[in-house]
């Protein structure tokens, strides 16, 4: 391509680039058909429609309190929910919704002892089963682990914990918020619900050049080369930009317990008087870590493998980032089948 031809492409590419950025909010995400099974406050339990359920044990997907759970169902053709349905699973999703200032009183105990426990109850009622599999991602994994640790008679048979923070010592995020000068009580007092944009900003600050420059530079280069891959870029960009607030009390407890005092791994978290002792977990456990995860670094998840009392513990460590591991372009061929296979072996009566 001559220099003149190359230059002539710039105005067209600039318009295309701007169009991809400006219309990313319209990208369809989370479109797999589903029904509302139960709601409470901002929480909604969904069940995905399927005509080919083969495994009786339902799978309940639990995402973090930051970002939306649509990442499980990113876009048609690249949706983990779609994949699980194709594999014959009965898939449920608990969506924490978009908390407001009125939810400032919701703490970690509200999510573990109420929302998650009640979501599990409704999943069992809707599926007609007595047991289920729980699949938690990021903070969602920690909530699932907490549930399994305090509920002696939990109906969970299988736990899948994806990039789950357990021991935060030495983490970059910890170096910011664990220090005394970061006054989390003041944050929760001034902001009844912590704006999602602020949390997203902090997450992006961990890799500032990559998040605020390289992503857009790479998109520009692809657009210039005539391969903008709009259908791949926009859903992920929309999901990344969609940050619900974090309820103030839950944020204060999360930062204090997990980062300032690192209580979970020490077994000193208490939820409504019950000690969260990870050694009480006796379910079949699959722990998935990502080698390049900077949000929940691999060393922060590994202690879980030694702590749990389960006889059936599997660990998958795969290359990828915190989100890319499950939502990246290679996930469908690499990690999804491995998780589905692990679940399938443990999901029959």
């Amino acid at each position, binding site marked *: 391509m001559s220099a003149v031809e190359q230059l002539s492409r710039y105005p067209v590419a600039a318009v295309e680039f701007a169009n991809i950025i400006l219309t990313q909010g319209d990208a369809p995400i989370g479109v797999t058909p589903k029904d509302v099974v139960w709601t409470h*406050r901002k929480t909604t339990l969904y069940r995905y429609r399927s005509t080919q359920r083969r495994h009786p044990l339902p799978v309940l997907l639990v995402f973090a309190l930051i970002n939306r759970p649509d990442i499980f169902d990113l876009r048609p053709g690249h949706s983990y929910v779609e994949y699980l349905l194709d594999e014959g699973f009965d898939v449920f999703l608990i969506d924490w919704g978009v908390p407001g200032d*009125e939810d400032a009183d919701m703490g970690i105990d509200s999510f573990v002892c109420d929302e998650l426990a009640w979501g599990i109850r409704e999943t069992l009622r809707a599926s007609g089963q007595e047991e289920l599999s729980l699949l938690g991602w990021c903070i969602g994994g920690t909530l699932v682990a907490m549930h399994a640790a305090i509920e002696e008679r939990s109906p969970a048979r299988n736990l899948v914990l994806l990039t789950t923070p357990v021991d935060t010592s030495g983490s970059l995020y910890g170096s910011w918020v664990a*220090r005394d000068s970061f006054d989390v009580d003041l944050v929760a007092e001034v902001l009844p619900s912590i704006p999602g944009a602020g949390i997203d900003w902090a997450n992006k600050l961990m890799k500032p050049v990559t998040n605020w420059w390289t992503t857009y530079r790479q998109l520009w280069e692809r657009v210039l080369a005539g391969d903008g891959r709009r259908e791949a870029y926009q859903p992920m960009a929309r999901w990344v930009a969609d940050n619900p607030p974090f309820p103030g009390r839950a944020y204060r407890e999360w930062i204090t317990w997990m980062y300032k005092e690192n209580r979970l791994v020490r077994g000193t978290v208490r939820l409504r008087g019950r000690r969260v002792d990870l050694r009480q977990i006796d379910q079949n456990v699959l722990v998935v870590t990502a080698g390049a995860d900077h949000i929940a670094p691999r060393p922060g998840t590994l202690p879980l493998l030694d702590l749990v009392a389960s006889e059936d513990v599997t660990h998958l460590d795969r290359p990828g980032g915190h989100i890319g591991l499950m939502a990246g372009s290679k996930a469908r061929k690499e990690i999804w089948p491995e998780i589905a296979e692990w679940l399938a072996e443990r999901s029959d009566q």
Partner: protein
Amino acid sequence: MEGKPTPADEARRLYEEAEGRTARAMEDLVARDSFGELLAKVTENALAVVKMGSDAADLVVRNLRVAGRRDITGLARQLARTEDKLELVLQEVERLRDAVEAAAPPAKAANGARTRTRNGRRRAGPGS
């Protein structure tokens, strides 16, 4: 001549190298203890400004005899608490209904009727 980089390729390589180095340098920077300290101070300052702005805005709105954010939040919180109580009552009703069904003669359960769930849909097993 194949394999010999063009000036454009070379420029690109140099740029990517520089970007990679900058990225690593920035990641080292944000990992420093002094950066964490600075971030904590910036957060505190931002919160102080937000609090002042929020208090002032609320004062103006209240003096206009209009419901402010705090009033609406208070109302929404009352609704949320009512919903919490309602949820507990519903769970208790469901427990009682399950107990009654379990105690009922088997003939009733064999006529094909299935339990209706709270939201109006029916319980369904795999494949529905």
